[in-house]
């Protein structure tokens, strides 16, 4: 067990956290008079029950992968990008705008629309990056504020320039759409789209930049120790801005998943989408690694999707899934506690 602990500990924490979260979720259900076995049964059916549910799970998970990657990329370089939510929104709007206003064959139109989203997200990320690099303004504060600017700014632009009946924009042209009749048919009409491929490509890009290139070396060095990086001749300011740009670009692409994939338009949002904030949780649960984030995003996507079935089949309110997700994150954050518990278990079970 000792041998295993060293190598598997990073995986052990999330797994334990998920199990603990589910157990405590069950206790809460029992206390509030629901049947946890029926509820979890419905949850599983809600994810794996039929191909429609599976397709919707993939659809829910896709933007979460990207927002998780965005948070993780910033985190790896020593920055807390709480502004993923705002970057998602501007990315969404930019991609929809290009999707509506341009006329081009798909090979040009679709990549262009995705790039527009990435660029918008990058710009939204660069602003806090610049402020941090030049004036040492803490990025947590600025990114939170940028979220509000993004929410009301995108709403304002839609209202002023793009408004259609139904508080939304026009649909994008099919040449910019990630949607697929084939995938829809395969999954009994779910809104699953080709975005998953984009998300996985971005996950590979992140891994490649961080671990294989000199740029990643610089970014990580600056993240760990700005002083030593400066002494080694690395341009610290440039790297902070670059990190925020790349992180923002990833978040912007997450927004395009909604704009070009799920919805094919953008509506006026009364509140944040949650994609960005869930990205923080996904990144945390996925230990800031590409593969971990994909797994974590699917777990969250599954929980969110299954929650619908849980409420309709077992009568358990969807909010309970929110509680379970919160519990899981809570336990990951308390990894010290989990560490301690596993230590106690491995030392012969004396608790």
């Amino acid at each position, binding site marked *: 067990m000792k041998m295993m602990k060293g190598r598997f500990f990073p995986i052990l924490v999330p797994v334990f956290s998920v199990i603990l979260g589910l157990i405590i979720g069950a206790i809460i259900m029992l206390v509030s008079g629901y049947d946890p076995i029926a509820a979890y049964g419905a949850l599983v059916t809600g994810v794996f029950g039929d191909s429609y549910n599976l397709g919707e799970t993939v659809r829910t998970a896709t933007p979460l992968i990207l927002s998780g990657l965005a948070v993780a990329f910033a985190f790896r370089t020593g920055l807390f990008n709480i502004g993923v939510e705002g970057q998602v929104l501007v990315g969404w709007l930019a991609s929809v705008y290009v999707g509506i206003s341009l006329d081009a064959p798909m090979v040009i139109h679709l990549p262009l629309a995705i790039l527009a989203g990435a660029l918008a997200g990058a710009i939204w990320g660069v602003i806090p990056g610049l402020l941090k690099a030049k004036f040492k303004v803490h990025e947590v504060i600025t990114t939170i504020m940028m979220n509000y600017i993004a929410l009301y700014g995108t709403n304002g632009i839609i209202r002023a320039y793009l408004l259609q009946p139904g508080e939304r924009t026009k649909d994008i042209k099919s040449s910019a759409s990630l949607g697929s009749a084939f995938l829809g048919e395969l999954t009994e009409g779910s809104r699953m789209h080709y975005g998953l491929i984009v998300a996985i490509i971005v996950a590979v890009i992140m891994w490649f930049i961080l671990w294989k290139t000199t740029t990643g070396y610089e970014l990580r060095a600056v993240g760990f*120790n700005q002083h030593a990086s*400066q002494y080694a001749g690395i341009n610290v300011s440039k790297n902070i801005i670059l990190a925020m740009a790349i992180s923002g670009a990833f978040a912007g692409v997450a927004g395009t998943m909604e704009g070009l994939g799920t919805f094919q338009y953008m509506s006026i949002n009364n509140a944040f989408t949650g994609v960005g904030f869930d990205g923080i949780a996904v990144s945390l649960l996925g230990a800031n690694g590409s593969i971990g984030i994909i797994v974590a995003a699917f777990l969250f996507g599954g929980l969110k999707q299954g929650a619908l079935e849980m409420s309709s089949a077992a009568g358990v309110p969807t909010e309970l899934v929110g509680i379970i997700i919160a519990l899981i994150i809570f336990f990951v954050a308390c990894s010290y506690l989990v560490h301690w518990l596993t230590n106690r278990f491995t030392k012969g079970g004396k608790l």
Partner: protein
Amino acid sequence: MEYVIEMRNIRKEFPGIVANDNVTLQVQKGEIHALLGENGAGKSTLMNVLFGLYQPEQGEIYIKGEKVDITDPNIANNLGIGMVHQHFMLVENFTVTENIILGREITTGGRIDLKKAAKEIQKLSDQYGLRVDPYAKIENISVGMQQRVEILKTLYRGAEILIFDEPTAVLTPQEIHELMEILKKLVAEGKSIILITHKLKEIMEACDRCTVIRRGRGIGTVDVASSSPRHLAEMMVGREVNFKVEKQPAQPKGAVLEITNLVVEDSRKVPVVNELNLQVKSGEILGIAGVDGNGQTELLEAITGLHKVKSGTVTLNGENITNQKPRKVTQSGLGHIPQDRHKHGLVLDFSIGTNMVLQTYYQQPFSKHKILKFQTIHNKAKALIDEFDVRTPSIHTPARALSGGNQQKAIIAREVDRSPDFLIAAQPTRGLDVGAIEFIHSKLIQERDKGKAVLLVSFELDEIMHVSDRIAVIYEGKIVAIVDPKETTEQELGLLMAGGKKDKAGDKV
């Protein structure tokens, strides 16, 4: 004979290593007892056992002849054991009094009686000659005074036995001298002291007896009066140690680094380097002696491109590098062993192998088209680690996990390997043990003999005297004298460092 502290046959294991193996420590009342050992020998582990932070696997502890079981620091406190840590445990924006009473507040009717506490602290301070102002804020007082606050903290809590963990590591020579006086005063007043150190000079100066630990094992206890630094060093490292730095006379040639009328301002626009002139020649080690805070840090940062130069020029190999970016300066032929190896020298969370290319990762053969070549990097790291005897389990071990000496060897390996014409060594042996110091000095001299120019900045006068070929004394941002180490004395240097004989300034060299 009854000992005030007796630790018998202590054994403490950690997964994979035995940190203490059969160590016995016997401290008499009213003595200063040194605990000597190299970095990682197990001194701190032993003291943490005594302080209740670790539980030993074997062995017994007796305090004043009574067997005790110290399971947490509160018990140690109640037994009259106090510890002055190397890194101070003080709240920066609290006053001295507030810090000292923290956790032991005197209250009247629920309110803290600061006045009464301050009076008591003043009394203690006077009694032991600590000269501490109870109302000063920690952030406004010197490091030396902060340490005295730590001492007061233990005294205030009624400590009879004081443990000092490498207390001189952070102090200037003057402050060290004062501390030694304080230690003597403390024992004169009936306290007993354990001094954890690897500095032989301090042991010879202040201690009565000395217990030596080597690789976790107790080697023995000797009377300092009947011992010698050579003998103690041998006990500590387990072999003969060469104290005298072996070197041939320098063969200096043309100037590699030339500084003319350099002015550097700090953030408040005060010139901290003021019209400074200096040359470092090929084939010599130029030592800069000075009290901390006379512009040494800013001078080095100005040369390396980390601090803006107000006026004046710095040329390296004839190339003007004034206000150039650090990378440009490095490429012009500069190697830099920074003063603070954790903050400036290494990315501690990177593996030691990755740290080896911190200056060169972007160049061939370590990367091509911006893609890192890990095979080449690892081979390079392995070669350097072998050549410079960096002791690490593997090249993938985080730099953080290495001992200070090995971290420093790694930095020197990295800097020297690029074969720079000009090498800055700032406090290169700070906090290191005799063996590592010997190694580092020999490497610096080796570079000199290859015809490189070496600039050595150190607060240790011994080091400056023994290693340098010329000594430049810095005072208030100016070089006030250049002396020959063979002809000067510590007294003369001390005087110059304090600003004496300023009129004779050997400014133009």
